């Protein structure tokens, strides 16, 4: 991991920004050198988390959220910080289980670490498949 650049996007918790996220993920993932199928997988996985953040209501209902991308020479890490109670609900229910299965399968790393707030991390390595 020679390089370590961060790109952070701060955006409204609104469904209409889904297409902007897919566009930004494409731009970032293609900079690392992933091929087109893997870029598609990363778009799907990132979008799943964004969708849950947008669609679930939270106690302290922030109007905005951040996506943090860490670019390495050999991979990409994507992080989201979400309130604790919220993270518990994200992967519940039918479509929550689908989301969890999809992200786990498409990404090389996927974790939800809670300590008060939760950090959702997903990673994809270059040349892992």
């Amino acid at each position: 991991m020679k390089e370590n650049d961060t790109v952070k996007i701060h955006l409204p918790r609104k469904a209409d920004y889904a297409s902007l996220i897919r566009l930004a993920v494409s731009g970032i993932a293609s900079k690392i050198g992933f091929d087109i199928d893997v870029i598609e997988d990363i778009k799907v996985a990132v979008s799943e988390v964004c969708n849950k953040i947008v669609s679930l209501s939270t106690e302290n209902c922030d109007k905005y959220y951040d996506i943090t991308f860490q670019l390495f020479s050999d991979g990409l890490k994507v992080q989201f910080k979400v309130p604790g109670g919220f993270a518990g609900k994200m992967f519940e229910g039918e479509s929550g289980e689908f989301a969890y299965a999809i992200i786990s399968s498409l990404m090389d790393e996927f974790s939800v670490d809670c300590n008060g707030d939760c950090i959702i991390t997903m990673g994809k390595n270059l040349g892992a498949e």
Partner: protein
Amino acid sequence: MFTLKLDNQTGDKLEITLSGEIDIASAPEFKTKLYDLVGDGKKDIVLFCDGLKYIDSTGLGILVGALKKVKLHQRNVYIYQLKDNIKKLFHITGLDRVFVLEEAV
């Protein structure tokens, strides 16, 4: 943006073409349109998906909801011509064994 088009409707079968992107922005409209057509679930549903470019877990959940309705009447949901990237999502979620997936018509 997605489109849902009713191609054909017989006594026991609804044929529907899905195309475009079913994401969080378009999911509510997709749910309303699909469930309106499915009604009580007394007909088989056939979905032609060769123009479907993107569907997320919310969209998959909506399809499962439709399946549940028709299963109550021993009917089924047939999904034709899924693109590879979307078929992958059906495999991952096990939905390839829940719906009837077919390559060609």
